[in-house]
């Protein structure tokens, strides 16, 4: 057995602004553990991805074991355990989008960004070399009526064509 255990050299903690958000947030729930998802989202927004230090910090905040946090982080594909690009592009590949040519949009994105599609276990595969974009396929984004769709971070873009994709990428703030 290797005796190696993750040593957390620089502990994570919320910055002042997020501390306030968290304090407001925690008051909404009857038990602290119930605030797990929003707390993790908050931490991921600050740190970029969920590191062991983040898990330990969240566990302490919510008074649960580290394993409970790890459990949740690995359950949901929206939490990342390795670095991702500044913009995470999620492209829907479910049936309605597929029928509306999402493959064309996907191929265009792949060429345009010069990257492959990330898998859940290998995000680096879909991340551009400059660390700006991560391209990943997802299941339904609940907008079948305006297929095909993508999400760039928290924003949904509808009725896509390669031309529209170009415009979207252009107007993203640097």
């Amino acid at each position, binding site marked *: *057995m*290797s005796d*190696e*255990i*993750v040593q957390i050299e620089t502990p994570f903690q919320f910055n002042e602004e997020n501390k306030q958000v968290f304090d407001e947030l925690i008051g909404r729930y009857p038990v602290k553990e119930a605030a797990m998802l929003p707390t993790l989202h908050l931490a991921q927004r600050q740190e970029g991805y969920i*590191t*062991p230090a983040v*898990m*330990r910090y969240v566990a302490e905040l919510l008074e*649960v*074991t*580290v*394993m*409970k*946090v*790890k*459990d949740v982080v*690995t*359950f949901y594909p929206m939490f990342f*355990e*390795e670095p991702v690009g500044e913009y995470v592009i999620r492209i829907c590949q479910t049936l309605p989008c597929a029928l509306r040519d999402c493959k064309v949009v996907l191929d265009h994105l792949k060429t345009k960004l010069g990257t492959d599609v990330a898998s859940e276990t290998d995000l680096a595969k879909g991340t551009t070399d400059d660390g700006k974009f991560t391209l990943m396929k997802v299941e339904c984004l609940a907008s079948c009526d305006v297929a095909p769709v993508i999400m760039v971070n928290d924003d949904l873009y509808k009725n896509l064509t390669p031309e529209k994709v170009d415009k979207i990428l252009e107007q993203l703030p640097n």
Partner: protein
Amino acid sequence: MAFIKLNDLEIEVEDGTNIVEAAKQHGIEVPHYCYHPGLSRPANCRMCLIETYAPPPGAPPGTPAVPGRQLATGCTTSVRSAPPERKLDEKYDAIVQTDSPRVIKAREDILEFLLVHHPLDCPVCDQAGECDLQDFSYRHGHDKSRYIEVKNVPPKKDLGPDVLLYSTRCIVCTRCIRFCDEVSGSGELGLINRGSHDEIDIPRSHEGTPIQLLDNKLAGNVVDICPVGALISKDFLFKSRPWFMEKANSICSGCSVGCNVTVEYKTDGLYRIKPRFHADINQHWMCDDGRLGYHYVNSDDRLQLPLKKIGGEQTTTQWSDALTLITEKLSEVEADDIVVIGSAQGTNEDNYVLQQFAHDVLKTTQLGLFGQQPGEEHKFPQFTIEADKNPNTAGARTILGSANGNVVLEGDTLWEKVAGAKVVYLVSGVPDRALEDTEREALEKVEFLIVQDVLPSEVTELADVVLPGTTFAEKDGTFTNSTGWVQRIRKAIDPPGEAQVDWEITQQLAKQLDGEIDYHFAGEIANAIAENVEGYGDATHQNIGNTGIKLA
């Protein structure tokens, strides 16, 4: 009490009993994986499905009960006595079928699902022979799988100092997770990923480095409760097939809790120790100190022949020689110059014969008690490991002092007496006993030191004569735990070499000095204790039986 109809049986069970337990009480097996009597019941394995009966909805009173629309999980269905108007078929509190065609079909189907990703590697699996998955597949399963896709092959994982996880074999019953959450309270285990990719794991970084290990002192229990071969003890891995080992019901000698255990052994030694259920003492559990603390029994260093000191060097000798040497020395000195010390590692029987020897033969009243040095107490939500690392402190103390006005020398008073004595007969049996300075100084001053022990130690080094004694695994007898339970230990293996049972050694010494001590087996001594030791009146050999007896 609830009166229920279980298959064709009409049985009475305690209110609140679940169907798995009710059936078990009457010899009917309801197969189950996630249910464990010592843990909470998530009903996630679906293996214990049963058919329950109820009157058809909206039917007038008195309508015969019919099978419910859905099957229910037996582990979460409990029965209690119902008011007269709610009795089923006018007399039953519940009607349950555990072997109807629907139930049997459901079990087969569940098993097929549970085996979807299972590697079926029984030939190389440690659990084979004592595996619920194997047994239930044999009794309730299909002979072939219809699954033709690629199986998930999650990695084998190292969880902690003694526990390995073969993830492929896991059926995700979550018993181990609930154990760590509820009994040990340490919560190291959880589920990662989702759906059919679920795996048990400790928290790790994305690269797989552990953030926390499964290293609490109760961790070994997860191996016992794992119904399949997923969680494996490194200590036992590939050591033996379970069916090649003999079993003896015994008591753990690691501390004064007195956990009921099963000692599993072959002719060449002990192989493992597992906890055995006792409702009032250890429930289903034991600690890893006790579980893994047996290795000294198998040690190649065990004392196998008597030793005597000639010119500062200890050399092996014959029993007759050693006994003669001792009895000569004992008859030379006054009774006041002799100190006899019993052991908290020894059985009540060892100590009883020893105090009889001291009193009736040597005529000394100077009796002391020796044992392992105290360790740390560990408290868990549902378990305690005591600081007293001896299994029989309570019994040894009472019995050694029984004919002596309950005066037993311990601690500093003992070592003062030892320092002034000419002959000391010290029965130790404590593995790895380190001596403190006062103890060493006192023992060094003794003119003639007799030590009866199981392993060479700092204590035996000082002895003029060493007699090879026996461990808990090599003798019959009883221990009294810290809460007053007198429980039986049983001989598993033969003592190494010419080592002998401790009370038999003492008895031989007594006989050489014309003492009238003549016992033939441990139960006879237990009866003598019951007759002569205050408080032990009920603790006869018969009464102690399998479950032990609690002293009043």
